[in-house]
């Protein structure tokens, strides 16, 4: 460790360059992963805020929630097996606000639910993003097809679906407004499920885990896939970068390695030295980019979907370190190969 540090101090430029590239790549990775996560919140926080559990839709709906309709009997059957089951429906639709502006929202109605706000008939509870856009408590919102307007009762944070604000309404209002007498989705949280080891199966219903259900949302999986691919590419690139940089650094040091081997220094110790250097560089760069990406999160404009937790940063950092370790080790194969004789015959260093 001491030798590793001493060498880095003597070759500051070389290691600073490596460090800054790792810093830039990890910063980019953190920001993109923050964006991916932010977009996924923006797209589906309504679902992501739910605890782990099982979703049920009609098999016939072919994994499209809007085609699913659970009849009274089906709801009863589910409730008998899982008394804590919640039922809800989502409908993408417009409303006209007090200044005659059209806005697209996701109307959500839920029975009994402890997961979503209870709403009185004739009222609506909106996602806070609409408050920022000038809608206030007490405003009336309407729609050409409705006889009655709804009154805004309150705002809640982070409830979005399909990149639209959620608008919670009373289930009876929902059935009246959208001319339906069924619910689309049943949800049973693992924590309240009966014999929770395995999701209960129901005839003609298809069960989904949280992530499976998220992937049925149009655009969600495509969006996440492409962003996550970028993150994975960046991680792979950073691994290759470590490999290439340490390869170049090692090539320049082969003479020293040879001499150290000649006087009896263990090959393992030379590897440890390289790992220590890789570790020091990564930790410093990662701490810096973690701090900067968190600062970015604080300073980013409110409308920008960016969400990066410390846990996510920590997980990515760990992956960076593991990949850097692999990269450095691969390039270190030269250290294993170097023969003391080559170095001795090479002359002055």
């Amino acid at each position: 460790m001491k030798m590793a540090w001493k060498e880095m101090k003597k070759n500051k430029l070389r290691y600073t360059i490596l460090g800054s590239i790792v810093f830039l790549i990890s910063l980019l990775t953190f920001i993109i992963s923050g964006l991916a996560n932010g977009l996924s919140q923006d797209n589906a926080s309504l679902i992501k805020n739910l605890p782990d559990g099982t979703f049920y839709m009609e098999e016939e709906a072919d994994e499209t929630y809007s085609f699913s309709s659970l009849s009274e009997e089906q709801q009863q059957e589910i409730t008998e097996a899982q008394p804590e089951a919640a039922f809800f429906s989502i409908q993408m639709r417009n409303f006209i606000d007090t200044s005659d502006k059209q806005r697209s929202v996701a109307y959500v109605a839920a029975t009994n639910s402890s997961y979503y706000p209870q709403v009185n008939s004739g009222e609506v509870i909106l996602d806070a993003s609409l408050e920022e856009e000038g809608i206030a408590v007490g405003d009336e919102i309407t729609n050409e097809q409705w006889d009655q307007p709804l009154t805004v009762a309150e705002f809640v944070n982070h409830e979005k679906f399909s990149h639209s604000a959620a608008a919670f309404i009373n289930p009876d209002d929902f059935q009246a407004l959208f001319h339906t007498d069924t619910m689309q989705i049943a949800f049973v949280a693992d924590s309240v499920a009966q014999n929770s080891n395995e999701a209960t199966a129901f005839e003609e219903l298809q069960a989904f885990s949280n992530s499976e259900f998220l992937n049925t949302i149009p655009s969600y999986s495509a969006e996440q896939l492409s962003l996550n691919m970028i993150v994975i590419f960046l991680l792979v690139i950073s691994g290759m970068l470590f490999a290439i940089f340490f390869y170049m650094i090692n090539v320049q040091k082969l003479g020293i390695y040879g001499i150290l081997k000649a006087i009896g220094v263990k090959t393992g110790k030379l590897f440890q030295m390289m790992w220590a250097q890789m570790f020091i560089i990564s930790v410093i760069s990662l701490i810096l980019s973690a701090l900067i990406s968190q600062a970015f999160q604080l300073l980013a404009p409110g409308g920008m979907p960016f969400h990066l937790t410390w846990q996510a940063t920590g997980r990515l950092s760990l992956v960076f370190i593991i990949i850097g370790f692999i990269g450095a080790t691969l390039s270190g194969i030269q250290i294993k190969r170097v023969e003391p004789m080559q170095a001795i015959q090479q002359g002055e260093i």
Partner: protein
Amino acid sequence: MSLFTMKNVRKTFAHGEVKEEILKGIDVTLPEGKITALTGASGSGKSTLLTIAAGLQTASDGQISFEQQELTSMRSEELRQIRAKQFGFIFQFAHLVPFLTVEEQLALMLETAESSLSKQEQKKEIRQVLELVDMWKRKNAYPPSLSGGEKQRVAVARAIIHSPKVLFADEPTASLDSKRSQEVMRLIQRLSKERHITVLMVTHDMDMLDYVDHVIEMRDGKIIQEDSIH
């Protein structure tokens, strides 16, 4: 039994298809605690013999024994341990570690040799050896800032700091002027006497023979003459 002996050592290098025998059956016994010089024309195989003796490359045939152990049949880890603990090396160029100070070079050697001395005793020993080679005042210098002679004196200090039983030196004075060469030779002579170190040293320079006890002359991979001087 002697400390260090070589029997019928042969070395063949393959230049493409052509095989060339560089050492053609060498028998050597190093007089214990004495300095043996290896001389001979360029290309006669001196460096090859020295590095084979020191366990830095393998012989094609023959036996090398050190303290009743057969070096030629050792696993590389055992050989490394012997190199680290029992052998010292001085090469034609100092080959110091550029990012360690003079003092740290010696500390690294003690660590490599798994020295049983306490940290305190190690510090004392380093100081003693550096004073011996007259480099204590430059203990915090890095190799690039040292002159050729200074570097070589540090290399000598590194080679003996862990009290090796055998010291191998390949033209240790070749990169130095004659005054500096004499200094380094006197140093090696003194260390060999004081610490009872057996030395095998390659040299071209006939003036250096004043400091040695035993001379082996090689030609074309064979020993042609062997003399005890004192």
